[in-house]
């Protein structure tokens, strides 16, 4: 077994991990370990833009961005964190530009911006151009730019190392245990500070925009170590996934003028969101699509609708909506605009559907997309462990795996990227200060013993269950019962089935019992992580007797601020059950009120 010593160890090499690494490594020795090569991380799949009130195309203010974010969160976001996010986003986008990120440009050479769901001018209530973009591959460019800067700054990378556990002594974190995938060898990373940036867990659901890697490893490990997870019942379904596949079609399509159309040929969003229509926030649009389908108004009565960005349709609705350019001419798009502003989307729909978006509408359905909940942290990325937000010294989390909380019950589009930039930077800087003051604590004897025993048990299991069978069953159950709409009986059914699936984990049998690049073993480990997370997601959702943001209960259709304006903290009990506690929401400038779009 190899042991490595660094001041700071970062797990995960998406945008959050790399931003933290960049800032920590300026002051202290820093290692990044990642189960994928960093350039394969899922930040690279983000498309439409990063939200920052630069005001390059029209008046905008970070305070408007903050209010939009709080309103989008259905008032569950912590407003102190949201202020830091929206003020910091402007600085972070400029920092990325200075690092070389190839943003699209306005005619006068500044960073180009487009409208996105829920982002408004707070005075006119009309959509505002706030999403800074590099075509429809903004996340790809962020990931590449941050990785380039990490190479420039000589950050140490351990690529294709899968985290297996934290090393803890009396609830203090002293590093992590990981397996080097290519050899199967277990390594211990001994550190003063550890940061988790392991991304989301969309693979809990059957239809998802998330990569295969998004199995919530960091969150499950935190939970199993006795720390809580926050607001896990709030999971975002993006309204426009490619039908049947879940591949994301950016909200930028609607930002450029695209509209949703039902089986009657009707643009239905004005009935649900009369002011900003198709650019309402994602929870609202996903529910609208489900309701249209339930009412038999899917395309040909099936479970999808059309997203139409053909110039004829878009230009017709621009006129009907009175959309003009700043110089008074009608807003218009052309086929060439679609090719230049949405090239990847055009490529996806041509490749996978044989649909040319310049001429035909795209069939879409909601797709499991983003975790608002996660590992609770303060605004410096320090993981907190209770209702009083008490931090654990030396443990940090940022990005989708974390919950600051800036997204509350529903995240606005473009706010995942600024989240990982702003809080990645803060966590990296805080780790550097922490590491300079802290001393390296001793490792326990054989820190990897528990993990090695678990891996050996999985590798040599003599049962009958294939891990993929467990995973696929779980994904169907969660899609059916803990999806866009939820109801008591269905969720109870889900809890029972998850429990039954969890009991089968000890009956897993692997085909691959070797050490070299054993993805059979890793998938079994990741399936267990998904099961552990599904359990707390369902438990939190079952207990929350209201509808708020992405958590929509048919049996409790209204928001209930008197009883439920609180964050959920879910703990794993030693006997395996879930204990729920609740934590107050930070309310500052904006008092909760009815949410209309």
């Amino acid at each position: 077994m190899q042991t490595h010593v660094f001041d700071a160890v970062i797990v995960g090499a998406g945008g959050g991990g790399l931003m933290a690494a960049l800032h920590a490594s300026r002051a202290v020795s820093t290692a990044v370990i990642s189960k994928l090569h960093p350039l394969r991380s899922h930040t690279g799949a983000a498309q439409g833009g990063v939200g920052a009130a630069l005001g390059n195309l029209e008046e905008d203010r970070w305070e408007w961005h903050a209010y939009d974010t709080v309103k989008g969160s259905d008032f569950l976001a912590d407003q102190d964190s949201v202020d830091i996010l929206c003020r910091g986003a402007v600085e972070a986008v400029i920092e990325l530009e200075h690092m070389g990120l190839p943003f699209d440009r306005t005619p006068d050479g500044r960073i180009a911006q487009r409208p996105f769901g829920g982002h408004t001018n707070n005075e006119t209530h009309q959509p505002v151009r706030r999403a800074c973009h590099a075509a429809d591959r903004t996340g790809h460019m962020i990931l590449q730019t941050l990785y380039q800067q990490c190479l420039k700054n000589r950050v140490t990378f351990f690529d294709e190392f899968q985290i297996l556990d934290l090393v803890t002594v009396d609830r203090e974190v002293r590093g992590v245990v990981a397996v080097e995938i290519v050899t199967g060898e277990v390594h211990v990373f001994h550190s003063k500070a550890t940061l988790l940036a392991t991304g989301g867990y969309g693979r809990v659901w059957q239809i998802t925009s998330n990569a295969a890697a998004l199995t919530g490893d960091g969150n499950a490990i935190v939970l199993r170590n006795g720390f809580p997870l926050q607001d896990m019942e709030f999971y975002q379904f993006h309204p426009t996934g490619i039908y049947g596949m879940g591949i994301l079609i950016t909200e930028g399509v609607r930002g450029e003028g695209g509209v949703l159309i039902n089986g009657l040929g009707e643009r239905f969003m004005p009935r649900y969101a009369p002011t900003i229509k198709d650019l309402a926030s994602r929870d609202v649009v996903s529910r609208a699509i489900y309701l249209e389908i339930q009412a038999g108004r899917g395309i040909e009565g099936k479970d999808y609708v059309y997203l139409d960005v053909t110039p004829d349709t878009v230009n017709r609705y621009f006129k009907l909506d009175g959309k003009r350019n700043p110089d008074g001419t009608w807003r218009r798009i052309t086929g060439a605009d679609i090719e230049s502003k949405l090239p990847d989307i055009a490529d996806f729909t041509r490749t996978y559907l044989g649909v040319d978006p310049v001429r035909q509408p795209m069939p879409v359905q909601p797709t499991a997309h983003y975790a608002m909940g996660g590992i609770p942290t303060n605004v410096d990325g320090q993981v907190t462990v209770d209702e009083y937000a008490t931090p654990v010294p030396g443990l940090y989390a940022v990005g989708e795996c974390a919950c600051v909380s800036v997204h509350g019950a529903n995240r606005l589009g473009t706010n995942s990227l600024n989240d990982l930039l702003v809080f990645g930077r803060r966590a990296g800087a805080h780790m550097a200060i922490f590491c300079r003051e802290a001393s390296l604590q001793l490792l326990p004897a054989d820190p990897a013993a528990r993990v090695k025993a678990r891996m050996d048990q999985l590798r040599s299991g003599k049962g009958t269950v294939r891990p993929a069978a467990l995973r696929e069953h779980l994904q169907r159950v969660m899609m059916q019962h803990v999806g866009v709409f939820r109801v008591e009986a269905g969720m109870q059914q889900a809890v029972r089935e998850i429990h039954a699936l969890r009991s089968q984990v000890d009956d897993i049998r692997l085909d691959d019992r070797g050490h070299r690049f054993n993805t059979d073993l890793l998938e079994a480990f990741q399936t267990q992580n998904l099961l552990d997370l599904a359990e707390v997601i369902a438990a939190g959702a079952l207990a929350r007797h209201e509808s708020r943001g992405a958590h929509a209960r048919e049996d409790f259709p209204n928001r209930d601020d008197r009883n439920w304006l609180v964050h959920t903290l879910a703990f794993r009990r030693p006997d395996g059950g879930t204990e729920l506690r609740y934590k107050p929401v930070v309310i500052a400038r904006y008092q909760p009120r009815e949410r209309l779009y």
Partner: protein
Amino acid sequence: MNVQLGIQRFNPENDAKPYWQSFLITQVDPAERVLDLLKYVKAHVDGTLTFRHSCAHGVCGSDAMRINNLNRLACKTLVQALARPNTERVPIRVQPLLGLPVVKDLVVDMDPFYEHYRSIIPFLVNEQEAPGRERLQSPEERAIIDDGTKCILCACCTTSCPSFWANGRYVGPAAIVQAHRFIFDSRDTGAAERLAVLDRKTGVWRCRTVFNCTEACPRDIDVTRLIGEVKLAIAQGPRRAGRVR
């Protein structure tokens, strides 16, 4: 639709040399991806089958492999694209990328490829103090580097290049594409250093304009043209070459 899926297998823990294994897969939807077939085999037939994959829609670059003798991403290759008329079973043969050591089955050791990427100084060089706001760049200046910024470093291009097969010290098309993206960036001041790296014996002059790279690129980057522009920049200086198009 039925598919006869041949996969080149090799696990150095057990096997002396690579061998072919074949799976008959029935009731395949023509719109399925080759990746879907590989995942099906792994999940339900043989869990030892090993390949990299993640996003499954052509943006992460994990699942580059050789499919019916061409380099492609398994997640961007649909079965229907490989079907021939009047065949009962669509023959699909999958093997690891050429020119890189095989780790196991379809997984290759990408380190030599990443090494070449790192050699071309793959980050913005500009030591001038940055302004308070963004540096200005016109849409026309931005357009010059657009194609290269689409690169996902999947290695389809480099491992389809006969010059790379012949000599693995050649930096290869992907590294040149990444260099192009900075050499022609109006904000960058490191072009001379990069061009010096690419003017070596292991640099652009090993390119014989075979166009395999352009044909292999799953991002539709005009790789051969970008390499040509770098050659021109070495010969004439980056400013003049940048104005050529």
